[in-house]
């Protein structure tokens, strides 16, 4: 099914992107072309193939990545807030939610 401008609008909403009408017009044929290209995978029968769910090598899979659940030093409140666009009283301030 070809991708339409209203599909693109819906995808943009799902992705929290406010795109302009010009962007919507430009993206629609581009994304449609890419989707048509990736559909070449349908030519392959993969009914008995296990999906690869990550990038780990066999050695990576065997590596014990766990550690004891003990508190360790972290950045701390001041450093964590230093880069915030609108810090206030030790918090991240945002526009009203409701």
């Amino acid at each position, binding site marked *: 099914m070809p*991708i339409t401008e209203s*599909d*693109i609008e819906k*995808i*943009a909403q*799902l*992705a*929290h*992107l*406010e*795109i*302009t009408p010009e*962007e919507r017009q*430009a*993206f629609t044929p*581009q*994304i449609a*072309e*890419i*989707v048509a*290209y*990736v*559909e*070449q*995978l*349908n030519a*392959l029968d*993969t009914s008995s*193939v*296990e*999906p*690869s*769910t*990550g*990038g*780990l*090598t*066999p*050695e*990576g899979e*065997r*590596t*014990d*990545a766990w*550690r004891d659940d003990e508190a360790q030093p972290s*950045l701390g409140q001041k*450093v*964590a807030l*230093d*880069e*915030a*666009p*609108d810090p206030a009283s030790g918090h*991240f301030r*945002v*526009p*009203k*939610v*409701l």
Partner: protein
Amino acid sequence: MTLSEINVESLRAKISRRETTARAVVETSLAAAEELNDTLNAFLQIDRAGALQRAGELDAAGDSEQPLAGIPIAIKDNICVRGLQTSCGSRILGPYHAPYDATAIERLNAAGAVIIGKTNCDEFAMGSSNENSAFGPVRNPWDTSRVPGGSSGGSAAAVASGIVPIALGSETGGSVRQPASLCGIAGLKPTYGRISRYGLVAFGSSLDQIGIFGRRARDIAAVLGVTAGRDPHDSTTADVAVPDYLAEIEGEMKGARIGVPRELFGEGLDEEVRALVEGAIEVYRELGAEIVDIELPHAKYCIAVYYIIATAEASSNLARYDGVRYGFRAEEADELRQMYRRTRDEGFGPEVKRRIMLGTYVLSSGYYDAYYRKAQQVRTLIKQDFLRAFEQCDAIATPTTPSVAFLLGEKTDDPLAMYLNDIYTCTANLAGIPGISIPCGLSVEGLPVGFQLMGAYWSEPQLLRLAHAYEEARPFNARPRVFAAARH
């Protein structure tokens, strides 16, 4: 200083023998970076004060056993260096300054390397030409009307133009090997899990890996040796011993088996590139290696698989840029969701938006199995192709890119044509195996061409040995038009 002397060992030897100082080497590198940046736009930040201070400390500490003591290095601007900016080539990170060092950076510092600055790249490492940077494209030192490749174009241009002997980049689908090839230098993408990604800004987490640029395999070996290894901060790093890559780099080619997937040398490959890559394979035959035909029947699907998996992972990873905790926030939003949407609309460039939307689409309800799961299954087939091929050969040789560096603007309106640049490189990211690009000559127009070697998991010692043997047999000493050597 001549071109062949701008390398880790020559510079280390000169510093050790007190023919020069770390400060003088770093000053030369900084001056070259500053002078050439108007032309190349390779650096987004040059840390003159920090680099000189560090070099001065190294000189004061006296003779050092540190393998990279006093060696200037450039770092792609998606890897965190404490106190310096990390923009990822994006406006959405605004004036972000990293509050901590990436593990790779910590290890480079411990080895004595001196970071001279942060290099330009495609926004969030998404691109093959560096034209997606919010801060303007990098220009190719061989011809400034052409792209340097991407996404790690700034790091590649900085090494190619002689500003630094070594640089870090990152790879998701070829972003080190492809610009290395287009800029006439060497570039390594290690095995998935070889170098910690703690402090590397995430793009496609099942694919991402830090990579290394150098003018020669020996320099890459030196950097890999100090950066590789298990890191408790990155659960994907594997508990695999780190060899002494430099000690193992010399070796006989007799008995080595080079696999050639003939079907990848056909349609879409530039004739000049094909001839030069086949010439490189002949060099291995002359050195005593055995050349064997192999098949990678699913390699032709790699771009389709890659652009589903990488965009799906990116749409999730880039959800964190919302204008709340760091970076840029759009003005004049009177409620939270509007603030998110406007921040992301104003902060992200078109290619990043395109990929977030594509990733959101392939993961959305009703399409997940048709696209995402299907791509994961074909990824398994691509991996199996490699496992079978490595029963017949030690390394696989292919072109790195289908053509030489293209003109700025040539492919910007056609995303799919741009994606096809990664056709020879992204299979290694999907399979998790290492790959290296090595220069093998110049086109008639005088533009560099690279060939690629891919090996089995953890085969970096063999790949570096093969690359080194080629460099010894056919030294690549051509010099780009934009070059800093006269200053050294």
